[in-house]
């Protein structure tokens, strides 16, 4: 299935892009999107322990199941305010 990945903050900066497209297996979970993106952009590896994920604008875990057309967001802990 096709997944859109959005990156924010220091994760976006490490990748050098705010948006990439992925092709994942039909049983993929959010953690697979993370793993696949990290494989393509090894500089993301530094965020392994702190990274947060969202699927379709909702907070998600690595176990959250994906479906075709979903948007996965990858970002560090938030620091607004």
């Amino acid at each position, binding site marked *: 299935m096709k997944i859109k990945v959005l990156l*924010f903050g220091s994760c976006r900066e490490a990748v050098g892009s705010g948006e990439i497209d992925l092709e994942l297996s039909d049983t993929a979970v959010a953690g697979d999107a993370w793993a696949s993106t990290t494989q393509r952009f090894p500089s993301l590896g530094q965020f392994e322990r702190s990274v947060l994920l*969202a699927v379709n*604008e909702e907070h998600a875990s690595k176990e959250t199941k994906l479906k075709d057309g979903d948007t996965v967001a990858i970002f*560090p802990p*938030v*620091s*607004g305010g």
Partner: protein
Amino acid sequence: MDQDIFEITREPIDKAGLEQRLLTGAAGAIVTFDGVVRNQTKGRPVVSLQYEAYAPMAVKEMRRLGDEIRERWPEVDRIGIVHRFGELKISESSVVIVVTSPHRRVAFEACRFAIDRLKQTVPIWKKEIFEDGEVWVEGQLPD
């Protein structure tokens, strides 16, 4: 509530206008938190702050925060949260939170809760720009 206000904007925040839009005859207290860019961090002069937002999700999370406030403090009359993004100079407002209520205790508590929670849950990030470099501010991991 329909008349609460949750916004992400690139423009300067119109704080007085926001308060005006939220004010009803039921309110006796308006508590407003205004987060502004400070001129230094740990003694190091700051030039500006660069804010980045995942805007549609940020607005969703703000609405959720509004729901949480109404559950905890049913007496609240109106809630307004506006967060700005882009590059902000010293003394510019990054976030304004307004809570109105018939009595002051609830408005204070809910407003303080709102900014504490926003900093944990709303997907916005900031980078400090110094004269000789820049640093992403480390966020807190959620509870």
